Structures are given as C-alpha cells and as structure tokens.
C-alpha cells in the first residue's frame, strides 16, 4: 500500500536517514498498521467534531513578570559543539 518512494519522502520530511533494509521493512510495516487504521474509515464521522485536548480549559494566564533564564554556560555544557557562547552547527550551505 505504501510505496518505497513514499517512505523516502516521509523520511526526508522527518529528517531520518533510513538504510536500504530499513526502507524495505518500513514500507511493509507502515502498510500493515495503516491497513488496520483504515477500519475507522467505515465509521460515520461527518458531524463529529475533532478532539485535540480532552480537558476543557479556558485561557490559563499568569502575570508577565521577568524571571532569570538559565545561565548560558550551564546550557552550553550540554551542547555537543559549543563555540563562542553559542551552539555551532555545520554550514547550511556546505559543499556537498
């Protein structure tokens, strides 16, 4: 049901690199799961509103008061590649 090309497209959207065996397996597994899910296609849901959150909440507000943020050094200590007080990443336009 799901073709290899579709899996590749979705993997690209999800920023996941899949190996060739993973691609094959994923296509089969996703197809199986979606086939099961397709059963909800038989239900009449035309006038049913969607639920994104189960608890009815009104706006939850708090005073907008300044608070200290995390110390920069403590945050950068967790970073894989900190540099000059910031997170360093490879160039977005690296030569391929």
């Amino acid at each position, binding site marked *: 049901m*799901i073709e290899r090309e*579709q*899996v590749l497209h*979705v*993997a690209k*959207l*999800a*920023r*996941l*690199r*899949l*190996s060739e065996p*993973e691609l094959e397996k*994923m296509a089969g*597994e*996703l197809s*199986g*799961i*979606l086939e*099961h*899910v397709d*059963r*909800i*296609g038989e*239900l009449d*849901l035309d006038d*049913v*509103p*969607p*639920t*994104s*959150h*189960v*608890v009815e*909440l009104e706006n*939850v507000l*708090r005073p907008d008061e300044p608070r200290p943020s*995390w110390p920069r050094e*403590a*945050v950068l200590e*967790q*970073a*894989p*590649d900190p540099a000059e007080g910031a*997170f360093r*990443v*490879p*160039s*977005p*336009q*690296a030569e*391929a």
Partner: protein
Amino acid sequence: MTELLEMSVAEAATRIQAVELSREEYFEAWREAAAQDELNAYLWRAEDRAVESDGPLAGVPIAIKDLFCTEAIQTTAGSRILEGHRPLYTATAVRRLTEAGAEVLGKTNMDEFAMGSSNENSAYGPVRNPWDRERVPGGSSGGSAAVVAGSLAPCAIGTDTGGSIRQPAALCGVVGLKPTYGAISRYGMIAFASSLDQCGPLTRNVADAALLLAAMQGRDPCDSTSLGIEGGIKAPSREDLKGLRFAVPAELGGDTIEAGVRAVFEATLRRIEELGGEIAEAPLPHAEHGISAYYMIAPAEASSNLARYDGVRYGMRVEAEGDVIEMYEATRAAGFGDEVKRRIMLGTYALSSGYYEAYYGRAQRVRTKIAADFAAAFEDFDFVVTPTSPSVAFGLGEKTDDPLAMYMNDFFTVPMSLAGIPAISIPAGLAEPDGGGPRLPVGFQIAAPALAEQRLLDAAHALERAIGFDAKPGEGSGG
C-alpha cells in the same frame, strides 16, 4: 532487614514520623536491595542520600522512570540519543515527592521515549519480569513495575500515554494508577504525546498509590494543562462496594482475551457482587477503534515532539559530510531505535499533506466518540471495568517482529487514555498463559470519570482487600 522491605510505604512513613524507624536505616536497606538488581530494571542508582525534607513521605525511597528530568542526574528516556544527558532542572512530579520527604533511590529502565509495551525497545537492554526472567515486564514503565514487584524499591513512578503504567503493573502483579489527564504536572516529563502523557504511581497496594498521588497532584504554573484534584487525596478506607455500579463493556472482544485472564476477570466480577457492587453490561461501541485512533494520534504528536532531537543543543550528535541537514539525519538515524523511527514515520505520514484529514483528522473524531461513550456509561455507572491486558506476561522476543500484535496489548488501556479519564490496575490473581506454563499475575482495570480519583481509589482499596492477592515472584512460579 527483610522485615523492613516488607513494610508498606504508608506504614514505613508512619513509623519514620513517629521516630520508631530511622530514615538512614530504611533507606540503606533499600539501597542494598536495589544494588541486587538482576532484572536490568535500574539505569542509575543513588549512592548517597540527597538533602532530606520532612513531610508525609519523609524517608520513603522511590524509583523514578528515566523519562523524568532530574537535575544533574543522567536522564536518558531509554534512548541512545540522550545518553549521558544531565538535565538542568527537575520535573515537578519528582520535586513534589522530594519536597514531601521522599528520596530518589534510582532511575528505572523503560521503552525508548515510552514507546512500547514490553520494555524491549530500551537502548539499554530489556527489563526482565521478576516472575519469570524469560518474559517481559510490560512497558513502557517496565523498570518501574519490575522494581516494585521484585522488591528492589518500595514504590515507583512511571508515565502512561496509552497504558504504560497499567499494563506493566498488571504483568508484574503490582498496582498502577493513571490519573486524570492533567492531575499531575507534565513539566520535566520528556514529551511523547502531549495530549495523552500522564504521570502516576506504581506501588504494592492502593493506599500507597493514594499517598504518592496526594503528594504529586496539583496545579503547576509550569504546565498550563495541569488541573489538580479538588479537595486533594486522602487515604482510602472503604471496605465494601454497596450502592456502586460497575459497567462491563458489551464489546469486550471475546476472542482476544486469554482463557486464564478471562477466568480471573470473571472471578473478580463475582467478588465485586459479594462486596455489594452491581455489575451490568454497557455499550462502549467505539472503544474497539481505540487502537486505530491512538496509533495515529500518539505517533503524530511524537513526530512533532521528537523533532527537537537534532544534535544541536543537547544529546548526541553524529557528524556527517555536507550541510546541517545531513548532520540532523545522521544524528537521528544513529540515535533513535527501530520503534521510535517507526512511530516518527507513522506520525509524519499521518500529518503530511494529503493524508492529514484521512488519518489524523479522523482519529481525532474517533477520540470524540470514545470520550462520549464513556460519558454516556458514567451517566448510569460509577465505574467501567475490564481486564488490564488481554494476556499475562509474554516471552521476550515473542512479539518484536510484529508491531501490530505488540500494539494490541494496549487494547483495554488506550480508550481511557484517549478519554483522559483515570484508571487503575490492581493484581486480581494468577493465571496460566495460553499454551501452558507457570501461573502469572493478571491485572483488573477500573476506570472512573475525570477527577474522580478518590472514589476510584476507595473502590479499588475495598476490592483489593477482598481479593487478598499475596503471591510473590519466585514462589512456585518459575521466577
């Protein structure tokens, strides 16, 4: 010392407050017990006691699922991508426990990012079931269930998105409570599916679960979806079930339940009647579509939540030839396990252009129908009851090649998660697996309307007393 380990949390806390029991001695006894972990249930164990607070939980050691951020203590969510990660802050649920006097004993193993029903998806190896080490403890809070069942901790907390507290509690023979969505703050709980994730206790008995819930529940300025339970939670004391009405779903899915599980379930229904409760069937026609709706909604939310693991700010990075996108892709390919990748793919597909309405949109509408089914049942009934899991603990590796078969473990637990209502699993007896073998624990699930936790705990306490489940792993059960 064995005596110390057999005390309930409620009893130990009372004795510590009366200065009949020393905090140091009690913690040390549990620290030594935790050090004997042969189940791969702990990912980290405390070497020393932290700063102590006084309160209702003074001196109670507690095991924390590794999904909760703990300041300066490794928090992995069972994933390679967070190996060695030391959060800058502590989750509200954990902070409230320690402020009430509890002391963190260790961090427990789990399915990666809480995605799984067997604990086999942990990057740090599977947890073994203390009743039979060749079987799974359930998941995703498998480590938390196993430490309580295996006497490696007096109590634990876990998280439940579609059954991840209740199902492992059932498979390990302990009590597991998923409170109402929002009853406990999600702040500092690593996100899987934000509209479903809920923290809750795993304990040896219902009174201990009430004690932990009482400490953790409440509104939190750091989580705007948190609610708190009006009037708080008191120790359950009810001894009968007179005047209470229990609904059994008319569509219980007869062929999917193991014979032994069904027998224990039916015996428990009779027990409810003996205690004065009434049992009747109620229609929950959409509950059977719970798995379909859940396995669209949860992966969709997960695909968004897990976008943050990109090798930039924290966690693992894999350098790659080329640009920043190549780095993201290489990092995520190496950092995530198979099930997490599968769910990210499923969720991304369900949200992608052209499929959104057919999958994610429809699933959200089914969610509305499931919640409405429960609301209708609660007009006539106080509780809805089901087996917690269709089977007893299954073998390691038995379902790893068939994702859909694994997902069906959540058949009875997912509908309550989608409806956001509280549900508890209590051990109801032992049963042989289909195909024979030593007897294993069976869980009985009771669900109540939103925020009716006190009523739920009171009823579960009365039923627990009547059942008198006192079997332990290793006593003629192949453990």
